[in-house]
């Protein structure tokens, strides 16, 4: 599961990755024509909308791509850097940058790109940007109030608007397509081109087709967590789903077996109940953990059988279904939940006058279990909640 840094790619190797990504970034920007200020500002005077086309195409492709990565659990979105939202700082900063764009003719990335091919104005621009950072640094007491006010955390736009990720992505794609259309009209008008904006040539038809596919693909990657959580709301579905069960006796037996290294108890109760009574070999888990990178490692340990427990069997079922849908193997649930386990094992009252040999055995085993398991629980130094050592990547500028 991504991001590959820092597990598969070390932090030092990441610098080499940065260099390679930078080279590709530079080539694409330069090939697209971002190395000339005249082309860049054309967008604001209506004669050349290249920047708008490249920028929004890249934005929507990346947006849908990231949704795809998230959908297929290829990347743990909780570890990906999401730019924080400082409302006023962001707006004022953006307006200043906009002013800088029409005055200076570049933005930082494009100025580096233009300077690389010898544009002197771009080199001057970089000097200016350098001085600008110093102005900000030295005048920090002046800016600090604005810089730190209205901190809204790191929400994602669809969360802010309280809509589904898919609809938001769809709106963004449609917005981009409309912007392309409108830009072409303006561009033709300013440049005195009389040809219609959209002509039935293979080029325009393929762009239109790709645009429509992009707009629709906003819906093919539903957010995994939202859709799976909704899936398990259907009670009949949950009850009829085929999951391996473990009886309370079998569960107790495996808890008692000291040599058993297979059992791994995944506990879905809340932290308070868990700290009161945590079973040996157990890990506290939450629904969110199922979608995260590090907790995933716990579930993916080879040769382990993961027994999902919760107070009631229904919750266990729901979680097990989600885990199953996410592709985890060797998942069982405790029959009847911990409620049944408490009643039938921990608080076991022996059957008086057992009628057959089975009941005799049951009496014998459960009496023993009821005596020993509480001791195990007492002595248990459980691993507690899943430890998450990885933090969100620090990104941004």
């Amino acid at each position, binding site marked *: 599961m991504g991001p590959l840094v820092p597990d598969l790619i070390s932090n030092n190797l990441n610098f080499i990755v940065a260099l390679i990504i930078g080279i590709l970034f530079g080539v694409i920007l330069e090939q697209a024509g971002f190395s000339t200020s005249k082309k860049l500002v054309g967008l604001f005077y209506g004669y050349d909308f290249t920047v708008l086309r490249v920028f929004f195409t890249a934005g929507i*492709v990346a947006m849908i791509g990231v949704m795809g990565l998230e959908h297929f659990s290829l990347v743990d979105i909780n570890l990906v850097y999401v730019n924080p939202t400082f409302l006023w700082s962001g707006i004022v900063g953006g307006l200043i940058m906009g002013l*800088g764009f029409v*005055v200076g*003719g570049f*933005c930082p990335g494009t100025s580096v790109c233009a300077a690389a091919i010898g544009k002197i104005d771009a080199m001057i*621009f970089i000097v200016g940007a350098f001085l600008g950072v110093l102005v*900000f640094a030295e005048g920090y007491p002046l800016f600090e109030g604005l810089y730190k006010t209205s901190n809204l955390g790191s929400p994602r736009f669809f969360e802010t608007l309280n809509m589904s990720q898919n609809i938001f992505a769809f709106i963004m794609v449609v917005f981009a397509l409309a912007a392309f259309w409108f830009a072409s009209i303006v561009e033709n008008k300013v440049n005195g081109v009389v040809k219609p904006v959209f002509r039935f040539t293979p080029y325009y038809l393929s762009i239109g087709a790709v645009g429509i596919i992009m707009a629709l693909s906003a819906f093919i990657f539903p957010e995994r967590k939202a859709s799976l959580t909704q899936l398990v709301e259907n009670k009949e579905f949950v009850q009829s789903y085929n999951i391996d069960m473990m009886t309370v006796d079998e569960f107790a037996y495996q808890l008692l077996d000291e040599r058993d290294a297979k059992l791994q108890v995944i506990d879905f109760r809340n932290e308070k109940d868990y700290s009161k009574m945590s079973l040996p070999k157990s890990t506290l888990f939450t629904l969110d953990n199922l979608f995260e990178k590090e907790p995933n490692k716990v579930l993916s340990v080879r040769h382990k059988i993961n027994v999902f427990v919760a107070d009631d069997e229904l919750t266990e079922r729901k979680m097990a279904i989600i885990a199953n849908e996410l592709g985890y193997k060797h998942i069982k649930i405790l029959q009847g939940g911990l409620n049944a386990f408490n009643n039938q094992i921990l608080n076991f009252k022996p059957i008086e006058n057992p009628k057959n040999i089975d009941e005799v055995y049951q009496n014998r085993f459960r009496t023993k279990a009821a005596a020993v398991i509480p001791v195990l629980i007492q002595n248990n130094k459980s691993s507690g909640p899943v430890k998450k050592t990885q933090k969100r990547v620090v990104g941004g500028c």
Partner: protein
Amino acid sequence: MEETKYMNPYLAGVLLGLLLITTIYITGRGLGASGAIKSYAVTVVETLTPTHTANTKFYQEYGKEHGGGNPLMNWLVFEVTGVLIGAFLSGLISNRLDFKLEKGPRTTTGIRVAGALIGGLLWGVGSQLGRGCTSGAALSGMAVMSTGGIITMFAIFAGAYLFAYFFRKFWI
């Protein structure tokens, strides 16, 4: 030799989008640019006046945020070095390498130089307030649908269109 034509903008956009997806998959972060300039600025000030940086809040907070160490051992510094190399190679292949000061037809060299300097300066300040520039805040922010990134993106475009009229003589 004549300059080669530029790439189709939609194709360039798709390639850039794919690069951004790859970047997020590998590193968990997006692209950027202004952060590298910031790292260089911090390094220069630190080298020239170490006592000043130790006593100034901005640099203290920068150090804290970036875990101390050399500010040039920074992902964006490497990435932007890559951009320089990549753009140079691309310019070389397409015959666009040339020392040239580009300006609008109705403006003087002096105004263009001042404009570039002041424009850069505005970006320097603005990208700090916006916590990123067109790459780091707007493009990468859009990829992960960050509220802050998208708001900053619209603010950049709004600002540019708002002020474009007053600076039209610079360009057309």
